[in-house]
């Protein structure tokens, strides 16, 4: 039952996100681009830091 509620909750959040994306995409394309772009910049930068640690442990493993 808990899982079902979680699923419904997440599905509702997803529907809301899509709705907002459509609305902001129509009226405020730049704002929408900023939201998506900023999220992307933050996540890619974060991924590059994770990659740093992976490279580091790989090079240690090789020694």
């Amino acid at each position, binding site marked *: 039952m808990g899982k079902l509620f979680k699923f419904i909750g997440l599905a509702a959040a997803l529907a809301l996100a899509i709705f907002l994306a459509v609305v902001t995409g129509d009226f*405020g394309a730049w704002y929408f681009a900023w939201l998506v*772009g900023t999220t992307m910049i933050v996540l890619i930068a974060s991924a590059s*830091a*994770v990659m740093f*640690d992976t490279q*580091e442990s790989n090079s240690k493993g090789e020694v």
Partner: protein
Amino acid sequence: MPLIDPSVVDLSRLQFALTALYHFLFVPLTLGMTFILCAMETTYVITGKEIYKEMTHFWGKLFGINFAIGVATGLTMEFEFGTNWSMYSHFVGDVFGTPLAIEGLMAFFMESTFIGLMFFGWDRLSKPGHLAVTYLTALGSNLSALWILIANGFMQNPQGASFDADTMRMQFNSFVSLVFSEDAQAKFVHTSIAGFVTGALFVMGISAFYLLRKQHVALAARSFRLASVFGIISSLAVVTLGDALGRLDYLVQPTKIAAIEGLWEDSNAHGSATAAPWLLFALPNDAAQTNIAEIGVPYVLTPLITHSLDTPIPGLLTLEQQAGPRILNGIKAINALQQYGVTHDAASLATFKQYENDMGYGFLAQKNAPNQDLTQITPANQDAIVAQTEKDTIPNVFATFWAFRIMMFLGFYFVVLFAFAAYYSLRNELEKHPLLLKAALWSIPLPILACEFGWITAEAGRQPWSVYGWLPTFQAASSHPVGYMVFSLIGFAALYSAFIAAELYLMFKFARLGPQDHHAEPTVGGGATMFGKPQVADKSWQ
């Protein structure tokens, strides 16, 4: 309406420019650092590695210094609208007050509240809870900028308001038009991402400093990596969005784009518009209305500005001539408005409505009219007055042209710098490129400089208007005595310089001190191994 003493107008402009430019020394770092902190903390939450928490703490401290000192410098400007620009506040207060109030009451409060939680909530909140707070702080600080840029967007391209002849002020009609105005949107993304570039170069530069000294290497190498990747995407975005802003200027502020490009004659004046050169270098002479020297790249201007291959771009001389009929209409509009103010008759109102859209040009002509009274314009003096006013419709070309060029050249420099930095960081080869590290360190102030020149482009290019096409700047000021203006100007300059000195002192102090390494360098692993043993600093660059 008597005109305000021109020296008071100039001093008011100088004071606003000074306070705004001082304020904007702090703002971009806040806009960018908050999202860099988000990236660092996200990495901490995902990997669980303490080093990322340490990074968030350390860079958060430097961000905190900037925020604490910078925030005070913004407050004065909100009051300046009332004290030094009371005519402006009267004219557009209904419209302009709304975004300013939302900025103060919503975004600034949100930002300040979450900043408190971000600094003091580490032990009180769960990991994801604290991460959410950091994201909300970043969102809050950027939302503050959003509302200010919405207000500025209205000054560049007034949307969502109309003039009310009964109250003699702009009436606010549409919140949606104001918020979703394309100018406001494009300005927000360009400025916010310019802040990202500033934050990224700040983190990258200070990390380079540690790497050069072989100090705090584990933290510095990771910070450099994260900031260089953050920076390369942001710098590419700021250039792209800058292009979009330029195109928007072409669509709604033709005098500004012509000044930005030093374009006196139409782009097709010497043949087809397609071959028109984009000026890499020029020395615009405002008095002679020509460029003394020019170096241009043919075939670039038209596609760059119009996003087409053959649409002609009107030059400043043509735009001056095109203003002529609008000035005549504007004079009719103001005379009818004054008549309506006395008689409230339907005929005057109808005449005013007919020429309403050119009202601002009538205000502009007032400066050149006999006794600054438009009713004293006669067929005998009309041509001379219109010709003089036509010249007043264009901004200072030299300042606008060069402010834009400096910002733009710096933008491309950032792309190159971040590209090399990210490339060598991703290959873990930074230690082989000390010159790159030095360039990163020395480039820390450059994005702030680019932002300042960006604002000069936007605001000097908007002149002679405070609200484009509606209200000339010389009509917008308050009527203070000159002594009062000089006194307050010196006061602000002294106070703000003290703020800058305090910021620089604290930043240098805490950056030199570095993160408090509670453990010996190599225990945190990664990166430390790549840069060898810590060394005594090479002081030559300091």
